[in-house]
């Protein structure tokens, strides 16, 4: 903590040394300078140090339970030291590390499956949800069916998908797509519902056609909900992908976890889990970044509210 504050003071002083033009006006930094400025500003806050401390405390507790004191039952789990030793070893004891090709094979297979499943679910789910929100008729046709299918747990679809689709790839992709599709569709529809009636009226009295209203009011107005939906949906896609890989798979991080468990090697199991966590985090962050890029107005609105 003391270090954080000391660092903050030191860095604040250097962050203030900005360039001025001849009128004494401060020139906005650009490109790499802007990046340096932002990084310094971030490091000048307390937040990164609190985060680091949180991670440290968590790792320490984990270590104490599994390796330090070896509490009953926890002694069966691989601790942080055992995991990191294997993870970063050129010749890992339990077979999986950042130096083995197999590790990347599993990651690439899972990522590719997510890209396909998430892509299909978004490509169909967003338009369907928008149309359902926009047109009473389309909603009457489709919404009840979706509402009945949606609560069925994704694992309950496993036998049916294996019967329906050949090979390993088909069922796995099907399950991840399905789970993701429901979330995306529902959120896109709710997004349209959330748009204030006045905007439709304003557009109507300005003489827009129904299609113009769809393009200029329905789609942009629903975007905040759509992107919230996409963030949840990519999480759900990972969740159901791993579940599917565990039941019916030949490769992928889910398969790696089950395979490691079957072969009684615990370290690769945990490595796969942590890897999933990080990839999930990054995929969700990428969706969020894309959303913020598309919705400059929404970002401004949120910052106006102090968020």
């Amino acid at each position, binding site marked *: 903590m003391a270090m954080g504050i000391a660092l903050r003071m030191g860095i604040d002083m250097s962050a203030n040394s900005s360039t001025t033009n001849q009128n004494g006006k401060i020139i906005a930094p650009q490109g790499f300078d802007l990046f340096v400025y932002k990084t310094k500003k971030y490091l000048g806050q307390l937040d990164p140090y609190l985060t680091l401390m949180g991670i440290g405390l968590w790792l320490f507790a984990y270590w104490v339970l599994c390796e330090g004191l070896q509490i009953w039952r926890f002694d069966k789990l691989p601790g942080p030291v055992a995991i990191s030793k294997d993870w970063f070893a050129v010749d890992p004891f339990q077979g999986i590390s950042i130096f083995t090709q197999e590790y990347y094979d599993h990651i690439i297979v899972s990522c590719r499956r997510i890209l396909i499943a998430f892509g299909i679910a978004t490509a169909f789910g967003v338009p369907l949800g928008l149309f359902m929100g926009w047109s009473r008729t389309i909603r009457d046709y489709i919404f009840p069916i979706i509402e009945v299918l949606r609560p069925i747990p994704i694992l309950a679809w496993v036998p049916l998908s294996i019967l329906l689709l050949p090979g390993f790839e088909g069922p796995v992709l099907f399950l991840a797509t399905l789970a993701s599709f429901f979330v995306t569709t529902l959120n896109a529809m709710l997004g349209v519902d959330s748009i204030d009636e006045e*905007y439709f009226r*304003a*557009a*109507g*009295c300005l*003489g*827009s056609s129904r299609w113009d209203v769809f393009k200029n009011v329905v789609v*942009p107005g629903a975007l905040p909900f759509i992107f919230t939906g996409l963030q949840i949906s990519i999480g759900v896609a990972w969740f159901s992908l791993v579940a599917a890989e565990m039941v019916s798979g030949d490769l992928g991080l889910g398969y790696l976890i089950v395979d490691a468990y079957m072969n009684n090697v615990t370290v690769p199991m945990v490595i796969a889990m942590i890897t999933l966590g990080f990839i999930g985090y990054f995929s969700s962050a990428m969706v969020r970044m894309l959303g913020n890029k598309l919705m400059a107005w929404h970002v*401004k609105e949120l910052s106006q509210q102090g968020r």
Partner: protein
Amino acid sequence: MAVKQTLKSKSTKKVVPNDASSVTLRNVSKSYGEVWLSDDVLKDVTIEFPAGELTVIVGPSGCGKSTLVNIMAGFETPDSGEVLIDNKPITGPAKDRMVVFQETALIPWQTTYENVVFGPKMRGDKSGQALKDEAEALLVKVGLGEFIHKYPIQLSGGMQRRAELARALINEPTVMIMDEPFRGLDAMSRSLMQEFFLDLFEENKKTNIFVTSEIDEAIFLADNLVVLSNKPTTVQTVMNIKLPRPRDYKMLTTEQAFKYKKKAMELLHDEAMKSFAVLK
């Protein structure tokens, strides 16, 4: 004051042509709910809005003023009766009647400029450089020249209302329908907006239908003042406000204005008491 002067100095150039239509409401009735539990909101409302005049509608809150606006705009259809523009019945919302909504209905994902050009662009009746020049001239006129590329959320309440006026005026409507447009503004911005709005009206002389629940605002603006009765809403009185134009805020303290105010207040107070009693 400084703000107002800049607004006035910029409004010397004429941007919007003078075209005005008369509006007639003939025996308009509207009720909501199921037949056996119907709640009459409007009953036999007949009002004449003369072309090129500013008619203000006042009534106790919750008396169906917004329903009246929705019907005139064409968002809702009356159960019986009709709305005529230049003696022709309306068939739905159209660009000859522009509505300025309560609070604001600027589209939040479009910049001020995009909001203003939205109508002409959608209909395809203006485009390219001509549209751009006109929109910019109009935005300068309403004092938003420097806020063209800001989003509505980045504008103050008063600026939002002015942007909305610009968005309506670019469509060259013959009737402007204002549904409590200055509601939610603080007292200072409100009186500045009223004066700005009057300048605009006195310059363009469009038919204006202005709905409000503020008596001072009503008398300051109106050529004709329509006082509505409580639910089911009917027209109680139409007053001619014969204050000279151009007006400024000092006129509200004259003997004449005070007489109008007294009369309107007495009428409204009776009506407001009725709805108050119903609530109790």
